[in-house]
C-alpha cells in the first residue's frame, strides 16, 4: 500500500456525473446547481462546513432523497433514483453518517439486510462466513457476529456499516464521515481500504472534516458552501486556501485563530531568548 502515489491509474471513464442538481426542502434550498464528476479509480473528497449540503447530496445519490431538478448520469446512462433500491441496484453503496443499522439485529443480519442469501430458508452459515471474511478484510475488532448491534461500540458499528457497503461489489462507494468514530488503527485501515477500492477501479466519494485524512487519500477535493459548488482543489492545495474556500472568506475564524497562535508562539520564543 506504500507506493500507490507513483503508479496511480489514469482517471478513467466518468462513473457518475451530476449537472445542476437542486434539492429544496420547502423554502430551504439545501442544494443549488451542484455539478460533480467522479471517475473510475478516483477518490473525490466532499468538504464543507456544517450545513453545506454534503450529507444531503449523499442522500440524493443514495436515493434516500429525490433531487428537485438536475440530471444524473451513471456510467454513461442518464438515471433517476426513485428509492434506495434503485441506487443499490445500479451499484451505488453508501455508508451513512448515522450508519443506518438495526440495533435489534445481529451483525450478520445487518450486513445482509435486504440481500439475504436464500430468501425462503436463510443460509445463516454462508452468510456468517461471508460476514467474517468482509470484517477480516477491514481488520475489524468484532467480538462476535452473533451479538446485536446495540452491544457494539461506535467504531465497531462503523466497521460493520462499511463492511455492509462492500457486500454487493458496488461501482461507486460513498462514505459520509467514515473515520469520525474510529481509532487510530481503524482510521488507517479505512484509508487503506479506500485506496484498495480505488485501485480496483471503483469511484469513491468521501465526506470528511479531517483535512489530514482528506489530503491523504483524495485525488480531488470538491468544496461545497451553502449548498453550492465552491471550487475544486487538489491535495497539494494549502490548508489556508481550502479553509477559505470552505468558510467563504480569507479572513475567517480559522485563519484568525492560527494567526493568534503564531503571534503567541513568536512572543514566547522572543521572551525565552530575552
Amino acid at each position, binding site marked *: *500500500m506504500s507506493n500507490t502515489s507513483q503508479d496511480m491509474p489514469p482517471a478513467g471513464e466518468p462513473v457518475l456525473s451530476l449537472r445542476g442538481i437542486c434539492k429544496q426542502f420547502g423554502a430551504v434550498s439545501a442544494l443549488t446547481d451542484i455539478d460533480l464528476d467522479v471517475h473510475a479509480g478516483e477518490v473525490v473528497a466532499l468538504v464543507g462546513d456544517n450545513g453545506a449540503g454534503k450529507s444531503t447530496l449523499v442522500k440524493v445519490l*443514495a436515493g*434516500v432523497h429525490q433531487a428537485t431538478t438536475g440530471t444524473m448520469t451513471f456510467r454513461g446512462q442518464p438515471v433517476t433514483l426513485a*428509492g*434506495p*433500491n434503485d441506487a*443499490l441496484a445500479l451499484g451505488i453503496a*453508501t455508508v*451513512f453518517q448515522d*450508519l*443506518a*443499522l*438495526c*440495533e*435489534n*439485529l445481529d451483525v450478520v*443480519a445487518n450486513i445482509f*439486510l*435486504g*440481500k*439475504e442469501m436464500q*430468501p*425462503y*430458508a*436463510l443460509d*445463516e*452459515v*454462508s452468510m*456468517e*462466513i461471508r460476514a*467474517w471474511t468482509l470484517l*477480516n478484510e477491514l*481488520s475489524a*475488532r*468484532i*467480538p*462476535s*457476529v*452473533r451479538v*446485536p*448491534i*446495540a*452491544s*457494539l461500540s461506535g467504531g465497531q458499528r462503523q466497521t460493520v456499516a462499511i463492511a455492509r457497503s462492500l457486500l454487493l461489489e458496488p461501482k461507486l462507494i460513498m462514505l459520509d464521515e467514515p473515520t469520525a468514530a474510529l481509532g487510530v*488503527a481503524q482510521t488507517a*485501515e479505512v484509508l*487503506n481500504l479506500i485506496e484498495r477500492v480505488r485501485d480496483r477501479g471503483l469511484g469513491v466519494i468521501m465526506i470528511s472534516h479531517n483535512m489530514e485524512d482528506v489530503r491523504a487519500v483524495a485525488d480531488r477535493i470538491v468544496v461545497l458552501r451553502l449548498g453550492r459548488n465552491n471550487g475544486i482543489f487538489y491535495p497539494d492545495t494549502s490548508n489556508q486556501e481550502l479553509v477559505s474556500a470552505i468558510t467563504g472568506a480569507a479572513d475567517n475564524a480559522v485563519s484568525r485563530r492560527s494567526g493568534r497562535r503564531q503571534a503567541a508562539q513568536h512572543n514566547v520564543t522572543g521572551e525565552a531568548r530575552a
Partner: protein
Amino acid sequence: MSSDKVNPVAPALDRADVRVRHDAGLGGAVRGFIDRVRSGDLGSLPVVVGLAIIWTVFQSLNPVFLSSSNLVNLLFDSSTVGVISLGIVCILMVGEIDLSVGSVSGFASAIVGVLWVNAGVPVVIAILAALAVGAVFGVVYAALFNRLGMPSFVSTLAGLLAVLGMQLYILGSTGSINLPYDSALVVLGQTLVMPAFVSYALVLAAGVAIFATGYSTAARRRAAGLTPPSLAGIVARALAFTVALELVAFYLNQDRGIPWMFGLFVGLVVAMDYALKRTKWGRSMTAVGGNREAARRSGINVRGIYMSAFVLCSTLAALGGVLSAARLASASQQAGTGDVNLNAIAAAVIGGTSLFGGRGSAYSALLGIIVIQSIASGLTLLDLSSSLRYMITGAVLAIAVIVDSLARRSRVSHGRA
C-alpha cells in the same frame, strides 16, 4: 500488509477474539442463559414463572383446575383467541398495533353464520369469504398507515367501532345464528380430538425434527470452519422437549385428548415462527420494527412489509373468529366483544413480544394465551363474577407490560437492545 499476521494455529473464524468468553457444552449453555436473563433478555422466562405461580394458586384453591378434563377444555378455548394473538405478534413485530382484532373476529363469525346458515352457501366458501373480508380490513389499515400516515392506534380504534357496527348490521334483528351441531366445523370446535397414538407420534416427530435441524446446522458449521454448538446440548434439548411433551400428551389423553383445533393453532405458530426467523420476509419485519429508516435504506420495501403485517393480523383475526364461532356453535352479536381484543394483545405481550417493535416470537402467542386462559378458567372454576375476572386480567396485563418495559431498559443498559 503487516497487520495480516497469520497465527501458527489459526482459531476458527468466529473464535479469533480473545476478549470474548465462549460458552461451550452444557455448563456453558447454563451460564449463557443466566447472563442473558440478568441483562434483561428474558425470553419466555416470565411466562414460565407466571404460569407456575398461577397454576399453583388455582390448584390449591380448586383441585379440579389441573385435571385432564379442565386442561383439555383450556386447550379448546386457547386455540380461538390464540390464533388472533398470533396475528397480534405479527403487527407488534413492526411496532404497530391492531385494536380491532376482536371486532374483525366477531364480524368474520357473523359472515360465516349469515352466508352458511342463512344463505345456504357451502361452508368452505363462507369461511374463505370471511378470511378475505379480514384481509380487506388489513389492506385498508395499511393503506391509511402507508399513504396518509394515520397512526395504526387511531385507525384500528376507528375500525373497532366500524366493524362492530357491520357485525350488528349483517346479523340484523335476530342477533344470533346457531350453527348446525353435527357439521364438521362445529365438531372441530367442540369435540374433535387427536387419537392418542397420533398425539404421541406428532410429539415424537417434533422432537426428532428439533434434533435433526440442530444436528445438520452443527454439521454445516463444522464443515465451514465455524464452531458448532455442542452435540450434548442438542441431544439434551431435543430429549427434554420430547419427554416433557409426551408426558403432557399422556396426561391429556387420560381425558378426551388433544383437540385438533389446538393442533391447527400450534401448526400455525410453528409456520409463523419459521417465517419470522428463517425467511427474508421475517428478517425484514424485525428490521422494520427495529429501525424503519435503516430498513428503507437497505432497500427493503417498507410499505410492503407494513402491508403484509396488517393483512396477516386481520386475516388471522378473522380465522380466530371463525374458530370461535365453531367453538360456541353460534355467530352472535356478542362474538368478538368484551375482553377478546385485550386477551389477544395481552397474550402476545405476556408471551414476550415487545410492544416497542422489533422483538418477539410466534411462540409468545402460544405461551401467552395459555397464561390468559388459565386465569380465565381458574376464575370461572372459582365461580367469580366477571367484574373480578376483568380486574385480575387487567392487572396481569399491566404486570406483563411493566416486565417488558423494565427488561427493555435493562437490555439497553447492558447493550443488548
